[in-house]
Structures are given as C-alpha cells and as structure tokens.
C-alpha cells in the first residue's frame, strides 16, 4: 500500500516536473549548439555577408566557411560537419538550371549543398533585397527549384533571418526509430481487455503482434510511443468492444498524427458487433477502413486486411 502511494506520488511529481520543464522551454529552447556553413557570395554582396557573420556570432551560432577556390569535395566535407548551409542571393547570378559547371565559389558551393539536401541537412536562402515576388529571373529559377529542406527568406533584416534559422534548427523532427518490427500493431482499451486478449491469442497463431492496451491509469505518452512503433508494423488494428466512443476519437487522432492517407501503415478500426454500431464509423467516410464483426471472426478480418495491405491476396 505504501509502495503504491509512493509510486503514485512519484508519478504526480513526474507530471508536475514535466510541466515545469515545458514552462522553462522558452528560456532553454535555443541553448542547443548549432553549426552552419556560410557559403561564398558574388562580390556585390560582400558587406551583407560580413554583417550576417557578425549577427551569427552574436546569436552564438558557429559559422564555418571555406577557403577561396576550395574544391567541391573539400566544401562537401565541411558542409557534412554542419547542420545546414546559408546562401545569400545578390543581384549577380551564379546558378544555372541546366546543371553546368558553376565557375564561381558561390555557384560551386550552392551545387555542393544541393547534392546534400536530405532529411537532416537544410539549405537556407536569404535575399536581403526583399524580393518576394519573383522579380529577378535567376532568383525566379532558384525559387522554382525549391523543394523540401530548402527555405527561402526575403526579409531585409539579418536578425530576422537568423531568428528564423535558429527557430527551425531548434525544432528538429524526432527520428522515427522503430521499436520492434511486427506484422500487426494491435491497440485496444483496457476496459475491453477480455475480448481483446482472446482475439490476440488467435491472431498470434498466424501473425506477429505488437500490443498496446490504453489505460487511463497509465501515464505513458501514447502519442510518442505510437509514432515510433507504427512505422515498424505493416498494419495497425484498433479494436473496441464497449469503448466505442473512445475508439472513434482515438482512431481519428492516430490517423491524423501518423500521416493520414499518406501514412505507410494502414489502419483498420474494428468493433465487436455485439456492441458496436455503424453510426460511429460514419464519421470516417472513406478516410479510414472500418469494420464491425463478431468476436470470433475478427482474427480472420485482421488476416484478410493484412493480406490485402501487404499484397498477398
């Protein structure tokens, strides 16, 4: 009894401290060390480059530069040691959309950065002349080339630009580390555990399962756990018996937080026909697959769904 009370107090303290930590976030948000590669520019905007370097140092961001005429390999190696590259767009062009050899340092380094664009490496393009509306042809071409991980900013203030850079580099996406790779991710409410365990037992004969019982007593952060586990499974089943109200809202939230129609792991919401009604599913329309079935047939429904999504049918 004393242990239970102690554990509950610890959990309460954890909750409060989590909240306290979150409250402090705005103060500690920008203490992570950021390392950026500041590229060469065309000669007309040397002054803006110098100003930017000064502002970066005041924002405690480490700025890395390359020697003049450095080779592309040297530049790439330096860039890979940084988290992003900064490019200043002046009035003179250095970019050729046909991909020919860039002959100035600015052009060469731009090309090097383009080849490194990936999930964790970003390119920041700053136009200090405030051209927001595609007025210059070569900037036009660059902006049409914008893809993910390329951020264009036309605010004349270097401080504004560095603030935005810092904000974006501080809110990095959480790495989708999978926990365990299974065929099915099976989620249910603890109130429905009786029937759920029976279904799990039958399904595990033919498929591998990762299970999650959602409980109001448990202080696990479900959203975080589900975001990590879901990509590791080929299909996700949300099962309910009595807890239909919870299940519908829960399924909707999971669908939204995990990529919607573009998610790699499809979701099936399935209810026990003894207590479920189709009205609850109407809210999903054709957004999410839903089904109602007898308890004994639910493992079969799961297998059919699994075969369909894995292309085995």
């Amino acid at each position, binding site marked *: 009894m004393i242990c239970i009370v102690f554990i509950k107090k610890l959990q309460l303290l954890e*909750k*409060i401290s989590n*909240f306290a930590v*979150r409250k402090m976030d705005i103060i500690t948000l920008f203490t992570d060390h950021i390392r950026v590669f500041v590229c060469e520019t065309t000669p007309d905007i040397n002054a803006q480059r110098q100003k930017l370097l000064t502002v970066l140092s005041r924002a405690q961001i480490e700025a890395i530069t390359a020697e003049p005429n450095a080779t592309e390999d040297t530049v790439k190696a330096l860039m890979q040691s940084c988290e992003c590259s900064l490019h200043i767009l002046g*009035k*003179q*062009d250095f970019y*050729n959309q*046909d991909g*020919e050899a860039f*002959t*100035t340092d600015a052009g060469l380094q731009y090309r090097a950065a383009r080849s490194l664009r990936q999930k964790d490496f970003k390119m920041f393009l700053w136009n200090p002349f405030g051209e*927001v*509306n*595609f007025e210059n*042809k*070569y900037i*036009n071409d660059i*902006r*049409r080339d*914008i*893809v*993910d991980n*390329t*951020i*264009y*900013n*036309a605010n004349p203030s270097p401080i504004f630009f560095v603030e*935005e850079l810092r*904000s*974006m580099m501080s*809110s990095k996406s959480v790495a989708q580390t999978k926990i365990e790779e299974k065929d099915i991710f099976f989620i249910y*409410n603890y*109130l429905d555990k009786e029937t759920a365990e029976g279904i799990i037992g039958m399904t595990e004969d033919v498929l591998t399962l990762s299970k999650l019982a*959602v409980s*109001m007593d*448990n*202080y696990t952060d*479900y*959203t975080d756990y589900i975001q990590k586990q879901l990509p590791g499974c080929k299909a996700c089943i949300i099962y309910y018996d*009595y*807890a239909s*109200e*919870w299940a519908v*809202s*829960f399924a*909707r*939230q*999971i*669908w*939204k*937080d995990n*990529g*919607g*129609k*573009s998610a790699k792991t499809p979701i099936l919401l399935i209810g026990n026909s003894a207590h479920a009604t189709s009205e609850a599913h109407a*809210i999903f*329309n*054709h*957004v999410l697959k839903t089904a109602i079935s007898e308890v004994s047939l639910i493992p079969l429904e799961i297998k059919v769904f699994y075969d369909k999504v894995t292309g085995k049918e």
Partner: protein
Amino acid sequence: MNQGICPYPGLRPFTEEETIFFKGRDADIRALAKMLETKKMAFVTGASGDGKSSLVYAGVIPFIRAGFLKAEFNKWIIVDFKPQRNPLKSLCEALAAHTNLDVDYLLEELDNGFSSIVEVYKQNGLYVDNDEDKAVNKGKNLLIIADQFEEVFTNKENFDDGTPSLETYTTVNLLLETVRIAVAEHLPVYVMFTMRSDFIPQCTVFKYLPEFIAYSQFFIQQLKREEITQVIQEPAILAGASVSSRLTDYLVNNLSSGFDQLPVIQHTMNLLWKNANNGEQQLDLLHLAKIAGISKNVLSPKDRKEFDEWYAKLPNYEKKYFAKPGLNNVLNAHAGILYESAFDYYQKNIAWTQKNITKEDAELIIETAFKSLVKIDNSRPVRNRCTLNEITGSINRDNITNAVVCGCLNVFRLPENTLLRPFIDTETMEEKYLSGNAILDITHEALIRNWKMLAAWNAEEDIFVKDYYDFKSQLNRWIDNERKENFLLPEGNLIYFEKWVKECNLTSYWIAKYDNTKIPQDQKILAADIEYKNAIEFLSKSRDAVVAQHERRKKRQKIVLFAILAVMTLLTGFMVWALKEKDIAKSESARANLKAKEVEDQMIINEHEKQRALAAENLADKERQKALKEAYNARIAKEDAEKAYNEANYARILADSMKNIALKNLQSAEDARKETEQALIVAENQTERARQASDSVSRLYNTAVSNALAMKAQNHYEDKSLNLRLAWSSWLMCRDCGLSSNTAELYQAMLFAMKENGFDNKLEITTDKIADFFVSANNNILVLTEKPEIIGYKISGDAPQEYTRIDCAESNSPVEKAFFISDDKVVFSTKDKQTFVSDVNSKKTVKLPRQGYFTAADNGINNMFATATANGILDVWQNDNGEIKIKKMFSFDTKISDIKISSDGSKVFALLHKGILMQCNINDGSTETIIDKHPLYAYSMELLESNNYIVTCFSDGNIRYYNTENKTIFDFLGGHSKPGEMTYDPNSKRLARSSSDKRIMIVDTENFMAQPYSLEEYNLNGGKVKSMKFNRKGVLYVLTDQNELRYFDTDIRQYANSLSKLNLQPLSNMEKRMILSNEFVGEY
C-alpha cells in the same frame, strides 16, 4: 482518390468531421491538454481571429476524447456554451442538452452558486467512485467550455455601466468554484474559457477571476514559419494529395501578420484545392495564378501558356480581378466574382420564385444584404447578424420578397463558397430556402477587411451613420421642444438630409441596426418604426415649412408689386391733370405775350431814336481812339522789329551749332549703319544655326518617334499585323528622314514582328541529334550528328536540300563533342573517349592518336589544325598524305577553354580557363604569356587580325579586347550572365556572343559605341546556344540544345526587303499619335 471532403474549410471553422485536418497547432494542443490535466482549468486568450475556437473545438476536444488527456474515466461530457444575453441560462441549457436534466431544475440549482455544478455532477450518475462501475465504463469526465467569454462584457444585458448582471456574476462564481473543488478533491471536472485578450482588464470586476487567469492563462502565439508550413502542407498530405514546396514558400513569404493570417490562408488553400481538381493534381503556382493570387509572369513558360489559354476563356467581368494579383486579392476576387455572377446563378438555379428582377435588382439586393450584415461600431465595421426579414425590409420594394432575396444570396452560401451562414450543406429544400426569421451572418470578419467592394460600402455606410446621428440629434431636439416650427430644419439642412435618406435608403430596419439599447430585437424594430415615422414627419414638416416660407415670400412680393402699381396709377392721373392745366396756362401766357410785344415794339422805336443820338457821339470817340491806337501800334511794331532782328541772329547761331550736330549725327549714323550690317551678318549666322538646331530637333524628334514605334512593335497585340506595320513604319521613318536605320531597337522590332506573324527562321534538316555544324564558303551547311554522320545541305531559298551523307562511325559510342575546322574536315570525340578526324571529300574517318575530352579545335593552313583537351594538352597536327601526325605539343596545368591559329600558321593562341592567354610558337615550341591571371574564368576567344585584336569572354559576361600592336586592354560590359559561344565574321566585322540567359549579343567591332543587336530567348524558341557560325553574307546560323538550326540576318535591310514584299500599309500620323499615347488599348 480524393472523393471525400476538402481538407481546407475556407473561411468557416472546422466541423467535427474535418478535425482530422486541423494542423499547425499540435504543440499548443498538447500544452493545453497538459494544462487542463494538471490545473483543471485553462483560460485561452488571444487576438480576434487568431483561431481560439478552432484550437479548442478542432484541436483540444478531439485530442482529449481520444484519451490523450489522462482522466479518471474513458468517456467525456463536453458542455460548451456562449454567454450571449444570459450566461446562466446558456450554461444550464448546454448542461441540460448533454445530461438529460431539466433546464428549470438546473436553473434552480445553479442559482445557488459555489459547488452547485459539482453537486449536480456527483448526484446525477455522471460520477462513480466504485471500481465495479468504473470497470464497466459508467463514469464520465466533465469538461465545461465557456466560449467567447467576452460576450459577458459586450452584451449590455450582461454588463452595463461597469456592473455585471446577477446572472453573470453567478456564472463566473460557479465556474471558478468548480475549478477549485475539482483540484482539491481530484475530480475529473475541467473548465476552459476562450476570450479576446483585449477584455482582460475588464475581468477585474469579478472577484478572483484575475488570480485564476494568472494561474492558468494560455496565450495563443502567432504561428511560426514551420507551423504555417504545416497548416499549408499537412492537410493535403493527410488527404493523400501534395502541395509543392515552391507554392508553400510563396505563401509563407507573402502571408502578412495580423488578424486575418489564418482565415486568408485557409480560404486560399480551399480554392487551390478545387482548382487542382480536388487535390488530384499537386497544388502549385499555376493554380494560385488561376485564383488571382500571383502574377502569371512568375510561372514557367509551359505553365504560362496553359494559364493564357485558360484566361482567354474567362468572361470579361472576371478578368478585371486579375489586374493586381496577390495573396490579399484572392478573397476579394472570389467575393467579387460571386457578386457579378449571382444574377446568372439566380436565373438558372432558383425555382421557387418568379424571375421578374433585373441584374441591377440582384446587385442592389446583395449590396443591401451585406450592408445589413455589417454594422459600424466606433467607425470600425463589425459583423451584425440579422434576419432575412430585416434584409428584405431594408430593401423595401414590392417585387423583392424574402424568396427573391434568399435566391440572390444563395450563391454565397454554397458549400464551395461559404461566405455567408447558414451554409447549404445538402441539397434539401430546408437548407436552401430560408424562412423570414432565419438568421444570416458573415462567416468571418476577414471578408469585411479583404473584400474591397464591401469595404467601399462600409465606408459609405460610415458616412451615413455619422449623418444619421447628426440628424437624430436634430430630430430629438424638435420632439423635445413639442415639435415647434422653430426647430424644424432650415432649407440647406433639409436638402442635405432628404438626399441622405434617399441614398441611405432609410428604413426602420436600418435604424434598428444602430439601436444599442438592451431591449429585444422585435421591440427595437417597433421603436425604430416609430423613429422612422417621426423622421419622415420631421422632414415632411420641414419641407412644408420651407414651402410655406417660399409662399409667404411670394405673397409679399405680390403686395409690393400691387402697391407700386397703385402709386403709379395715381401719379399718372396727376400728371394728366397737370398737363391740362399747363395747356390752359400756356394759352393765357400767349395772349399776355402778344400784348407785351406791342408795348415792346413801341419802346423799341423810342429806343432807336435814342440810340442814333448816342451812336453819333460814339463815332466821334472812336475816331479819337483810333488815332491813339495807331500811335501805339507803331511803337509796338518798332519793338517787334528789334526783337525779330535779335531772334534772327540767335537763330543763325543756333543753325550753326545744329549744323555741327548734324554732321556728328551723320558720322554716328554711318557707324550705326556699319554696326547694323555686322548685326545683320550675326543674325544671319544665328538664323542658320537656328535652322540647323531645328533640323536637329526635327531629327531627334523623328529618331524618338522611330525608336518609340520600334519599341511598341515589340509588344503583344491582339491584331498581330500591327507589329509588322509598326516595324515597317519605323523603318520608313528612318529612311525618309535620313536617320540611321541600323539601330538595335529596329532590328529587334523587325525580328519580333516577324516572329509574331509566324515567320519561322528554323531550317528543316535532320531530326538526329546534331553535335556541331559548319557553313561553307558556298553557303552550304554541314552537320555532324551524334551517330556520327556528316550530312551536307544546300540552302536554296529557305528550304535546305540534302546533297551528301557520310557515315563516320568508327566506334559504337555516340559523339560527345565536335568541331568543324574547315568545310571539309571535322574533329570529334565520342563518349568512350576516342577522337577522330573525318574528311568530307575523301569520306574517310581517321582515328587520332590523342584521346581525351576535347574543349576546342581550330582550322589551320597547309594541312595543319590544332586541338585542345580538358587536361591542358594542346596538339598541332599535320596531315601528310592522309597520315595525321602531331607536329607540336604544348602542355599546360589547367583546362584550355579555347584556341585559335594565326593566319600565317606560325603561332597558336591558347586561352586557359583561369583567364591566362598564351601565345605558342609552332616552329620552335616556345610559349609566351600575353595576359596574366584574371580573377574570373575565361570561356572563349576570337582573333580579329584585321584590326589587331584578340577578344576574350569571361564568366561575368564581360568581353575583353586586347590590342596586339600597342598591348592595350579595354573591357566591354557585356552583361551579367555567364558567356557561352562566340564567333566572328571578318566580312561584316561583327562579333556574336551567347550567354547562359539564352540571349545572343552581336557587337559591331568597328563601332563599339553603337548599341549591339540582341537576340532574345524567344528568338531562339527558348533554346540554349550550342554552336554559332556566320556565313559570308553576314547571316548568323545558330544551333540550339533543342536540336534546332536557326538563321538571323545581321543586315537589317534584308528584313526591310522582306517586309516591303508584304505590301504593308504604313501608319498614318493620327494612328502614330494614338498608339504612342497612354490611352491606347490593344496591347496586353
């Protein structure tokens, strides 16, 4: 794929079905849920329109229903209410709807305040505290949401003169106590408020409310860049569609901060989704251009073409909204187009009423409706909900009934528009056809701020409102003073207010809109009706008073006139009598005169006798006088004679001096004559100069007009023959006025005009990929394809005729780079790094011993030619009876950009990539540096041996001329694009240079001051120059990377000849004036 709902709701808030697409506030949702979980309360504040309600209803509520707020039970009761006019009643009604309890019962219970809500919760089966009931899911958590809590202060029923009503105070007490008890007893009861932050100071009137706000306030922050990106992109991704990054970039960079940030972006995304075929296409800049959100000039050429085709089909009334495209124009364009098309929609779709209204009626209906739905509050337009009856009453016309008004407004209520509530979500009649009491509302205040037409109506309404208050004060003054005539309106004010009543279309409904008292709406309308009648009576009585005043004035005038007439009549009578008396007096007077005359005559006779006597006496006196006078005259005459003598003397002296003066004057006149002659000569010179200046002015004027016509010829017109006529007229003007016709503008004008009219300068030759080409001395064209194959063409007219075809393939690899070094030899390298020389005459292909990637080659003499490679090897080759051997080799440590052999065959010039120019002597193998290092990279080179120049091109686009004789250098600013190919015509002395921006510049090397000719991207059909050559007649042939071979004559007279054969009508003076004026419409 996307048959379901659009993930962007537009201006309206998210429905429950759409909460799955609510993105951008994920962190806020989690933070709010955490706050509720730990503190049982959250007070959500923020500016107007920043999405507080959406955050709660579309974000937090689904989140906690999904179980992500750890509460005691699985199930939730969410009781949400708005304070409106009685907060306590609203709370009870909301609680009753979710709990099946009776409203009256709840009113009675909650009226006690404090723990009443908690008691109701515990005692009515909502809260369970035994494990068995918990296990079967019986208990329910309770969340109470007081939405738009500022209504507690804005409605006069709740808050008047700084004092809250009893119901309001009780409600606040209930909610705060509920929080306190929930925290103390760990109950699963939570309370949330949403309120505009500008009402926080007023919260001090409620005890403890400021402290509770400090305990748990959540201030909604402005969206950061990554959050805005989520709002834009993630709903599409969730729906299985996508938004291009460049469109996202444009939207993020153009979104203004402020009230309307979120609604504008949601509305824009909603329209973009539909334009992209409901998400089946990727949402991109083209779709934004189609909703007038961005200029078409931003689009790629392919998209621009598609846009132009689509735009051409639009009706004219839609096109005007594309004049100033921009993100802030999207909502304006959408609403404006609906306004213009509402009448057509009404005619086609509304079946429940007769179609006896005109387009003007429909526009009046819409204008009146929107004016009714907006109220001016302290000169600021705000939403004003009103019923259909009120709108119809405001229009006040017999043929415009509720059914007609509803029909005209329905287009704004459609699901794809949703600018007016209630929306039409289904096809049922209940939703389409509104009753008179149905309440209409503008969906969001963003429409008021962004629709320009509505803003103009509001500005007008603002003036009307000010006039109304002015009028009302005068009306009240009249009523308060027992409606006395003295307080009626004077004529000037009366005319003004009569005009105002007519323009404003004053009705009792309009008056009721501005009634700020706290009586119910129907009573307001009754009161307004009375005020309206008073107003009409006031105006009518004022009008009568003014008319009466006019009448009185007229009457007075009549009286005065009558009086004058009477006086005149009297005076006339008197005058007649006076004239009669005068006649009588005259006749009496005449008789008296006769008698007097007789007496007079007698007296006269007596007088005569007397006079004769006197006359005799006088005669004697006169004779005496006469004698005296004679004596006197004689003396005077003597004096006069003396005087005359003196005067004559004096005059003689004077004449002498005058003679001297006259001589002097004569001399002066002679001098003046000479000066005049000189002045005449000067004047003649000035006249000549003036004449010359006039000629110059005339020349300048003609030059300016000719240039202006040439520039106008480069615009787009609906009638394309106008381009030709403009170019032709410019040419004629130059010719007739003796101006130089060799101008760049005229050249470009002619090229443009001919292109616009379908003249195609493309040569129809092989469709195989061409590596390089050559123009021979007899104007034949030789091309080397990638196969490789040499094909020869004779050019007769515009159609090339193939005359030879030689297969040069010695390996299976296609050609990578090629150089024609003469009209019978071509050097090429293949992709497998082999190099060959092919001879057109012998049809033989020989493999060269040197391998590698060629960067340049040049013709030689005496069977000699040279090649250069990327690794800096320069070879001079000798052809000995078919065997090709290396004569001399030079090696450099960097890439060679270009080479040229001198005409005497003694040296070869090498332009290195780093900008160094080397002279290599073939005979002794020595090298000499001519130009040392240059900060930029060098690309190509030409020898202009006739005027001792070597011309080089650098990466910044500038051209450098090096004089080999006096070793001087000068730079010619060529532009800011990286250069490409260069070629020189020794006959016309013209140098052509291409650049990476798809242009060609043609420079006259004998006159650097002249503006170079320019061939633009459209001249080359958007292709990039691969190779260029001149023929002997100064025609430039250009090979592009689109495998097109085009030709351009550099002699402008040739184009003039072509135009002259078209029998074009030159422009008249009037046409020229019209086209050159700013009012000319015809170009686009």
